[in-house]
């Protein structure tokens, strides 16, 4: 369902064609990195630290090297020495420990052998002498007086401090005068919120194949969110120049931010170089959960003031985000995401901690869901205390164009009010709450980003087209690129073949992150198409012997007054007579990414004897700017919603007292299954982004922001119990209900 105020109508944009890569993906032909096999390929296995924190005294690889089938062993000593101030230092140390193992699961060595079984056997035979060191496992332990240092190379970012610290970053931002804001308030609410680490949970474990030749050049087949970043990060970790590395994108089986960094490729390249054979390295699910990208655990205190007429006067908040073993994902973005309300007085402290747990990575609207849990819970309580509709209270305080964000920058044209109204007018919100159930609403914001993209559009001799980009297709972006090209050229979408090209076949393109692919890479495609149209007009002018000024481009054809229009196939057929092939390339550093807002509503029933929560109905509205392929926009909204639902209800990293993850399997890391859920009704709101030719805003991330507070607020409505810690799993919820009944 689309609520649209978008006045423009398009021929192709906004339609729902079958995606171009779909057939390969429903027939099993699509090749993900783990599906690739090269001639002479070896299999690799990793040796991981059993300690949360230990000095690596020595590593003896001799037994492993002597084992059957073993062709190469590498350790930290084989990797480039990077200066700790190098921007890729933490990434490089995370993929292979040097002096210290910084978390349970930190890689300390790697082995390549003829078979996977031989590699695993040899990995088990690598002898590592560890001297265990005191480990810091939680935010509270990290910030405690006299805490041991979790990572001796960590320095607090931009502090100018030269001493090791357990703080990764300390930032403060705000405006106005919070004390005055509290004085002006009639109601003041204050709570502390806790969330634990959760995983992105992509179904495809990390995998790559590397083939390094005797010339010292390597080809990498990788499943990643950005193969140019795989190239640059691999080059940095190895101290190589980028021309020695070519990265070919395999299909990617989900990323959600977790595949914006790398874990395997430099290791595979070094093993391949040593063995002079291709090497395939694939993680097990246990390795993925133990040692790749959880989203940060948090501890957030938030204090909010409001007047009796519902004006939120102040927000004061301190947000701790745990980065894990090294600086992973910045706490800033989450803290900045408190941008949905006017908040004349704001004081935010965002502090990143370092602990001896797996290094955190970006996860869909990184850090915003945790921040929204705090802020949206307080706003819900405020609405409850004021006795006003929670959407009306938000409408009263909602930011509009020109209001400033938490980082003091004015919002461009945004659709928050429209998105709130979409839920307010929805069938769901206007239906009675089912007997015994509770209804919750909450909102989410994500600013989205632009960054660098390139695109080449080639017209073939029969007038079909190939659209070449460097953005991996995580969830239907090939189709979006083809739709925008179709709209520009006036060419049917099935006559366009969109491809994702390797690092040597298309211009540099940043990672598919920050909901940028359809926005920024799409803009590059549009620009290339427009350049191509200029060429087509020129060719038409040549064919018809008129001045190019007399040629107009209308609906896929060159129109010259008094003559029959010339279609693309007619022009391309004569390309060789008019100057050669028709091709155009565009590159850009996209500015003007449009912020996106989401509003969710859920009805839940809680079994107050067991603490089980059942979601009866769920509706999610989100401003997409313009939905290029509405099915995949809905898919992003629905998928983000369900990841947030999992985060809210059952997903959690459980560490024992030694820092070992106790639930490193899909059995006990409980992601939602189909029977846990109702349909997720997606409402697409379209308030076009004026900075994009088709009005696109990123849609990938915002959907994960509202679900946690939406469900917390619904549970509060159903039970009267305010949950301030995640997950709201049956044991925790029953304990809270029992405690509340007792008090």
């Amino acid at each position: 369902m689309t609520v649209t105020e978008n006045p423009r109508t398009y021929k192709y944009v906004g339609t729902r064609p079958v995606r171009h890569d779909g057939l390969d993906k429903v027939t099993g032909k699509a090749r993900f990195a783990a599906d690739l096999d090269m001639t002479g390929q070896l299999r690799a296995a990793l040796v991981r630290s059993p300690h949360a924190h230990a000095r690596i005294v020595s590593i003896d690889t001799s037994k492993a090297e002597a084992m059957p089938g073993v062709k190469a062993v590498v350790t930290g000593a084989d990797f480039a020495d990077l200066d700790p101030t190098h921007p890729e230092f933490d990434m490089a140390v995370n993929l292979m420990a040097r002096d210290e193992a910084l978390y349970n699961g930190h890689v300390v060595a790697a082995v390549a052998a003829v078979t996977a079984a031989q590699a695993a056997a040899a990995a088990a035979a690598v002898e590592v002498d560890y001297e265990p060191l005191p480990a810091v496992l939680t935010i509270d332990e990290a910030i405690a007086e006299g805490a041991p240092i979790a990572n001796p190379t960590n320095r607090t970012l931009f502090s100018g401090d030269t001493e090791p610290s357990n703080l990764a970053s300390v930032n403060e931002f705000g405006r106005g005068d919070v004390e005055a804001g509290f004085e002006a308030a009639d109601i003041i609410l204050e709570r502390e919120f806790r969330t634990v680490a959760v995983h992105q949970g992509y179904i495809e474990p990390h995998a790559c194949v590397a083939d390094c030749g005797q010339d010292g050049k390597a080809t990498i087949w990788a499943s990643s969110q950005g193969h140019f970043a795989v190239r640059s990060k691999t080059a940095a970790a190895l101290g190589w120049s980028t021309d020695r590395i070519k990265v070919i994108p395999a299909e990617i089986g989900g990323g959600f931010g977790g595949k914006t960094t790398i874990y395997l490729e430099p290791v595979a390249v070094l093993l391949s170089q040593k063995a002079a054979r291709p090497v395939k390295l694939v993680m097990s699910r246990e390795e993925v959960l133990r040692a790749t990208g959880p989203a940060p655990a948090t501890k957030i205190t938030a204090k909010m003031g409001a007047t009796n007429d519902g004006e939120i006067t102040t927000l004061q908040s301190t947000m701790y985000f745990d980065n894990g073993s090294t600086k992973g994902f910045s706490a800033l973005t989450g803290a900045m995401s408190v941008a949905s309300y006017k908040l004349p007085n704001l004081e935010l402290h965002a502090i990143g901690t370092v602990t001896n747990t797996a290094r955190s990575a970006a996860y869909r609207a990184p850090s915003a869901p945790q921040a929204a849990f705090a802020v949206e819970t307080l706003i819900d309580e405020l609405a409850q205390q004021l006795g006003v509709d929670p959407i009306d209270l938000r409408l009263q305080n909602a930011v509009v164009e020109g209001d400033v964000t938490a980082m003091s920058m004015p919002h461009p044209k945004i659709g928050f009010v429209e998105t709130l109204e979409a839920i307010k007018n929805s069938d769901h919100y206007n239906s009675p709450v089912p007997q015994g159930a509770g209804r919750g609403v909450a909102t989410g914001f994500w600013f989205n980003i632009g960054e660098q993209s390139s695109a080449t559009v080639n017209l073939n001799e029969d007038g079909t087209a190939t659209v070449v980009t460097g953005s991996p297709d995580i969830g239907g972006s090939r189709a979006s690129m083809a739709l925008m090209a179709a709209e520009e050229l006036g060419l049917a979408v099935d006559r366009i073949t969109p491809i994702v090209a390797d690092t040597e076949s298309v211009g540099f393109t940043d990672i598919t992150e920050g909901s940028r692919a359809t926005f920024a890479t799409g803009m590059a495609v549009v620009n290339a198409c427009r350049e191509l149209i200029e060429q087509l007009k020129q060719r038409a002018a040549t064919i018809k012997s008129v001045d190019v000024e007399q040629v107009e481009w209308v609906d896929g054809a060159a129109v010259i007054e008094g003559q029959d229009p010339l279609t693309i196939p007619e022009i391309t057929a004569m390309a060789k007579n008019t100057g050669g092939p028709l091709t155009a390339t565009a590159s850009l550093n996209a500015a003007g990414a449009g912020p996106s807002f989401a509003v969710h509503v859920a009805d839940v029933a809680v079994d107050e004897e067991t603490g089980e929560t059942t979601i009866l109905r769920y509706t999610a509205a989100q401003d997409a700017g313009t939905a290029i392929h509405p099915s995949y926009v809905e898919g992003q909204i629905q998928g983000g919603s369900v990841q947030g639902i999992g985060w809210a209800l059952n997903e959690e990293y459980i560490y024992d007292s030694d820092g070992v993850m106790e639930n490193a399997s899909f059995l006990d890391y409980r992601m939602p299954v189909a029977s846990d859920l109702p349909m997720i009704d997606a409402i697409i709101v379209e308030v076009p982004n004026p900075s994009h030719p088709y009005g696109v805003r990123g849609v990938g991330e915002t959907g994960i922001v509202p679900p946690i507070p939406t469900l917390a607020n619904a549970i509060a409505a159903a039970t009267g119990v305010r949950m301030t810690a995640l997950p709201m799993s049956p044991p925790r919820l029953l304990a809270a209900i029992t405690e509340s009944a007792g008090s």
Partner: protein
Amino acid sequence: MPRTHVSCTVNGDEVDFLSSDETSLLNALRDELGLTGVKEGCGTGDCGACTILVDGKVNCACLMFAPEAEGSSILTVEGIAQGDQLHPVQQTFLEGAALQCGVCTPGFLVAAKALLDENSDPTETEIRYALAGNLCRCTGYDKIIRAVQEAAVQVNGASK
């Protein structure tokens, strides 16, 4: 290393392969027979990405030792289309945008086909429970459930 000779039928063809005894059927299908449409998401039977039919019944290929396949008939995602005619679930997944990254898709398609083979008119709840052994992290399941519902309509239409 002991290797066992295994004979079975895969996607309608009689095949033979040699397998070390502790190898999972998943590894044998992928590494020995090149059927990489069968995916490994967990290796412990918790995600369903390796779902195949063994004598018509859904199984996780990762939870079978390869020699167990002796004499059985196996169907993978590579074998569910009839020649150039996609199976209805393949067609409705495509048309209904029921896949995003596509890595869980083969397992879902096989499980959905098995469901419709046994029950061509399932309720939404029956579909959700029948597919509960298959994890998808991209779609939130909504479009997958709808695609199976639509495929059921097509299957019923064809059988009437």
